[in-house]
């Protein structure tokens, strides 16, 4: 896929980082404001799609490989399952960190209040892990479908002799 014009590339270089920062904000503050893991992960994947469309496939494949996103996705799902298994003394997915005083362990005053980031136990850990998984998964879908639609533009593989 060819890169777009100079105007589109300059606007992408200026404004794509707002998408990344906003997406990470929505993931981290999932237990205080509307949002959470899935929504913030979709916003950060939109950042990847923006870079892919504006700069073209060749530059994108020289910046990122597919292995980083595989690692992010598998690491996210493993972290999610282990956060559920660690509370196994009561039930599966028991919130054992809430109000316990350690990491993410403060209590919340009842009623309307300005939120504090240190609260809500395993919910915050699960937000981060699901955010990682969604970013890795959606970016991998994008990169695989792109390399399937343009099979002659991938780097580092001998493509001569294909009959498709």
């Amino acid at each position: 896929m060819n890169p777009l014009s100079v105007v589109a590339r300059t606007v992408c270089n200026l404004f794509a980082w707002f998408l990344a920062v906003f997406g990470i904000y929505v993931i981290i503050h999932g237990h205080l404001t509307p949002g959470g893991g899935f929504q913030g992960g979709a916003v950060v994947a939109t950042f990847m799609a923006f870079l892919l469309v504006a700069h073209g496939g060749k530059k994108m494949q020289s910046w990122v490989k597919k292995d980083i996103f595989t690692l992010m996705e598998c690491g996210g799902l493993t972290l999610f399952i282990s956060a559920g298994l660690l509370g196994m003394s009561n039930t599966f997915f028991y919130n054992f960190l809430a109000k316990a005083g350690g990491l993410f362990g403060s209590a919340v005053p009842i009623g309307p209040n300005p939120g504090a980031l240190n609260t809500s136990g395993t919910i915050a850990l699960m937000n981060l892990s699901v955010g990682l998984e969604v970013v890795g998964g959606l970016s991998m879908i994008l990169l695989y479908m792109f390399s399937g639609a343009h099979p002659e533009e991938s780097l580092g593989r001998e493509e001569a002799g294909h009959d498709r």
Partner: protein
Amino acid sequence: MIGNFPYLVVGILFVMGFVGLVFEKNLMKIAIAMSVVEAATNLFIITLGYRSGGSIPVWTMAGGGSSRMVLPTPQALTLTAIVIGLATTALMLSFVMMIYRHYGSLDVRDVRRLRG
């Protein structure tokens, strides 16, 4: 009758998507119609949980609206449904790409062989 307007919109969207799913001949239009049916279903689940005069079910900086909040459970179920719809659409579009690469046309009447 006019107070139940969201349910009418859900019905119209569903019928439009269903008609496109059954009577279209182009594979891309079938994929788009399936996406419209999923959108109608998610809209229906969300509008079931509305309480008139309510605010969002979040306690951070909740002002005077904390006396009535809308129901939070349909919103939680719709999150899962949207992600599943995304997975279905991604796989459907990948299959359409592979069919086009193999058969050379996107017409659903040409894709009839059982063993390619």
